[in-house]
């Protein structure tokens, strides 16, 4: 079981880094978003609107979640392309079980995401007070969140057959989830109707959890509720994604 999943995982990570330019560019944009956009706006943010941190620190930690989102959610797009190009048939002909394929792809997507976010951690470590233990804990939370996003990406990619619709659905889900969360701005600044949507958004809990876990403070309280929601999200979307994927590769109606 482990060997098969590891082979699929290794391939996903390798293919991800063949597009080094794309990854580098996206990371650079996220870094510049923090270094320029958040830096400039932090001078104009209402005092106390983002709690005990500055807007720059708030944004730097939120942008890690955004980066993780893009990298792991895209595994769904890869699965879609593999199905379109027929590569999935080759994968299925290998002496690897369906479960190994599914587990390998989800783990591969999560590893990709963590690797992409590492440079952003360097920036966050410069901007916020943190320790190695805080960063390790935060990487753990992000890994679980990324597993959930892989599941969500696979669900979205395999729910539609037409490429145009798949692209639109992916874009809509990504933009709506990121922009209606507390990843880039705090809850207190949102209008009430948006606050309701934000409370139902798993990206909000991942962002809140990451901020609590990454910033070192002697009076820090473990964000049990936020992490529980992230765990539930990962379990539900992971299981659902795996189920849809297994139905597809077993010749179900999604094929």
């Amino acid at each position, binding site marked *: 079981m482990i060997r098969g999943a590891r082979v699929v995982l290794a391939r996903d990570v390798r293919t991800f880094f063949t597009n080094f*330019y794309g990854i580098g*560019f996206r990371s*650079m*944009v996220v870094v*510049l978003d923090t270094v*320029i*956009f958040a830096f*400039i*706006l932090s*001078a*104009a*943010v*209402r005092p106390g*609107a983002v709690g005990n941190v500055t*807007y720059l620190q708030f944004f730097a930690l939120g942008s890690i979640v955004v980066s993780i989102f893009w990298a792991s959610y895209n595994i769904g797009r890869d699965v879609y392309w593999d199905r379109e190009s027929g590569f999935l048939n080759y994968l299925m002909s290998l002496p690897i079980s369906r479960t190994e394929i599914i587990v390998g792809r989800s783990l591969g997507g999560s590893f990709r995401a963590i690797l992409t976010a590492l440079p952003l951690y360097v920036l966050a470590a410069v901007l916020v007070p943190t320790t190695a233990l805080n960063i390790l804990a935060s990487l753990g939370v992000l890994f679980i969140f990324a597993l959930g996003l892989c599941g969500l990406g696979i669900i979205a990619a395999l729910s539609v057959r037409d490429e*145009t619709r798949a*692209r*639109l659905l992916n*874009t*809509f889900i990504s*933009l*709506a989830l990121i*922009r*209606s969360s507390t990843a*880039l*701005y*705090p809850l207190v*600044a*949102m*209008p009430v109707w*948006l606050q309701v949507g934000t409370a139902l958004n798993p990206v909000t809990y991942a962002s809140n959890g990451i901020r609590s876990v990454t910033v070192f403070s002697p009076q820090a309280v473990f964000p049990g509720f936020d992490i529980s929601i992230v765990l539930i999200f990962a379990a539900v979307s992971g299981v659902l994604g795996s189920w849809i994927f297994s139905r597809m590769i077993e010749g179900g109606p999604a094929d």
Partner: protein
Amino acid sequence: MLLIAKRDFYVHFSSFSNNLWLFMFFITGAVFWAVTLGRLVLVPNYFEFLIVGLMVLGVYNTAFNYMNIVSTEVRRGYVKYLLALPVSRGGLTIGRVLAGASEGIVYVAILFGFAVAMIGFPTLVGALTIIGTIIILSFCLSSLGLAIATHFSPGVIDPMSDALGILLIFFSTLYYPISLMPQPMRLLASGNLLSAGANLMRAGFGLQEASVVDLVVLLLWGLVFGFLSIRGYYRQLKELA
């Protein structure tokens, strides 16, 4: 010339997904992002400020990215067929620039309606200022895209345009007023065509004073990029000869 412009225009708007993507980007930006940031920062009328910035970003996304179509044609060698048409190089270039510009204009017309609903109707002079700015800005950006697509090798085009895009967007007044920027950045922002376009459009909506400097900046860049795009097409001809 009009035939080329018409062809490119129809091709662009036949891609439903691309247009809907751009529209969703703007709508989610306005509904979630601008609304929240407007309440977060102390800058007066920041919501309206950002809505106009997002409109300019819409022009950028359509008119500048027109370059991708041209660079694909150069890479595949399809440009040879266009150059073989009984159309002058100048006519071909202007046709293509017009197509890119009109795509930007049509797209922004939809955003303009949304912005009016959010900000309110501009005066007649204001409306004319906004329309004029959109036309010049679209022309500038589509000719810049065309100049890049025809001057550089396909491998360099993507990194080059991405780097240029970052510079243009981050060092402009699309997202933040010039008064908040550090001093060296202000100099770059005041010569930036996106800043000039955004400032003029904000002046059209009555959010700030109109400035002749912005108009001059926009016209100068239009001349430079227009010249470079025509030169690029002539270069293509020379290489094929």
